[in-house]
């Protein structure tokens, strides 16, 4: 199993009111799966994704990622895991403005093992070429279409060759054609062995996944 969740609880404290976001969530996701997490807003799907992404820690329960118990790790160790094992794809792309596509892709490499500049550029170039952006490498995000921006973001997610990609509404800001392109790309990456966990509320998009996890009121149904 790539991901093993056991009895995970998470409560958000909001102005003296406790809002339970996750209640006794247990789940397994094997390596090579393509999972869509669905649910209404407030169902806890974003909280779950944040936990899976090691951006947040569960209040109780266990989370094993790639055989390592990560629920009790310190912030530096979690940063290392985010860097090596997880690639993030966001709804709003989150590319640095006034920074070229290539530099955006190289960003995670700065926080990993020291790497020579030549090698960094080689890696980003290979990935961007593969995603069909070879003649957009020196463009800034503002000069790219939404679909192109999301592909730059995916290249960035892949640059450290992580086993897991976490996508939060990756097509939410895209027109349907670009959305289909991105989903086709996800399927292709998944066929190559990368595990993908994607949060979406669109059934059309969830169709691309091999498995759908439905969430309601902080629990998997």
């Amino acid at each position, binding site marked *: 199993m790539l991901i093993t969740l056991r009895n995970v609880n998470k409560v958000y404290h909001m102005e003296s009111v406790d809002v339970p976001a996750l209640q006794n969530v247990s789940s397994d996701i094997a390596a090579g799966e393509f999972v869509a997490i669905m649910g209404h807003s407030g169902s806890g799907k974003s909280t779950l994704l944040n936990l899976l992404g090691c951006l947040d820690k569960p209040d109780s329960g266990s989370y094993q990622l790639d055989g390592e118990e990560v629920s009790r790790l310190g912030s530096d160790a979690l940063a290392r895991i985010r860097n090596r094992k997880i690639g993030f794809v*966001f709804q709003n792309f989150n590319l640095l403005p006034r*920074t070229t596509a290539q530099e955006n892709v190289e960003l*995670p490499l700065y926080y990993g093992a020291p790497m020579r500049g030549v090698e960094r550029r080689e890696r980003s170039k290979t990935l961007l070429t593969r995603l069909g952006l070879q003649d957009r490498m020196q463009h800034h995000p503002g000069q790219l279409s939404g679909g192109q921006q999301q592909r730059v973001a995916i290249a960035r997610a892949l640059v450290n060759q992580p086993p897991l990609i976490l996508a939060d509404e990756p097509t939410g800001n895209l027109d349907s054609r670009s959305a289909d392109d991105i989903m086709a790309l996800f399927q292709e990456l998944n066929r190559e062995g990368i595990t993908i966990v994607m949060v979406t509320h669109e059934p059309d998009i969830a169709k691309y996944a091999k498995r759908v996890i439905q969430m309601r009121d902080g629990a998997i149904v």
Partner: protein
Amino acid sequence: MKGLITIRIAMRALVRNKGRSLLTALGIIIGIAAVIAVVAVGQGASVNMRSQISSMGNNLLLIFPGSQNSGGFRGGSGTQQNLTEEDGEAILQECLSVTAMTPLLRTGAQCIYRENDWATSIQGVNIQFPDVRSWDVTSGAFFSESDIRSAARVCLLGKTVADQLFQGEEPVGKTIRIRNMPFRVLGVMAPKGTAAWGQDQDDTIIAPWVTVSRVLQRSRFNNVNQLMFSLDSMDSLPQVKEEISGILRQRHRLNSGADDDFTIMDMTEVTQMITQVSKLMTMLLTVIASISLIVGGIGIMNIMLVAVTERTREIGLRLALGARRRDIMMQFLVEAVVLSGAGGLIGIGLGIGSANILATANHWPVMISPVAVLLAITFSAGVGIFFGFYPAWRAARLNPIESLRRE
């Protein structure tokens, strides 16, 4: 993350906001530039004053007659007429450290050459005067020992007097009238410039002391206003003063309990005063520099806080991509330091530039102090660290989830 890469990331962020980066650094730039320029001018002035003091003469020592005590009243320095040329000769003979001596008699008079007249001071001295004051004759020659003995009516003109009386005409060999007595001009002294205390040293006439005493002051005595000595070095100054004091007390037949009837002065006191003034100036500058650096630093802190707020999403993203909190901290800290350091460097350039402009425009002597430059660099970088710390700490403390959600 390697330090070089951190600096590169910071530089990139600053270059992305060129205009704002420049404006932010402006406080530091102006502060440092002002300090460098003012220190340069101040140092130049101080060096200039020192050189003027040394232009007084080589290792100069002055003796003035003391105060007169009569019936309980004590007059000021110089009220007593008990210092003589013979005293000077005796000191020159007996004190080995004294290499040259001249008496000095001072009087003032109206001088006339044809239709030009000019009121100036007249100094009566002996032939060692040029040595003692390290003051050369540019045209003509100094008077001789026999001119002194015969109380010859000869004189040398200071540059100002020569200009005023002769208006470009050659003065050497001409005769001027001092108190309606004819004096032959033997030569003109080299221009000496303005003294540290503002007096024009060239506005004077030099004549044999005996001439001044007998002819101009109509005195039968050998009293002098002042004795000037050149010492071989200033190292043994206290001993030399002791020695001279002993000789004079003996010659003036003072009892062991009596006060000195003379005053020995040397230039170290004046030098000390100048050192003190320049110390005060340095302190004042330090205060101004500190204030401008603090103001500049607050500017940097302000902009860095804005940057942290503005770039919250970027920070969240970097955290998600694997940046540790200390990486974020370093990024913003380095940005602040690069900002202030670059501001410091630009300020140094600007300061040196404006100091040179001041120097050429006003003919002020300026001296760029390497110490000030070094301090400026160190302090501007220090300001970056100090004022960049809080914004950087705020940035590093951000929650990645909330930061990513921020629009």
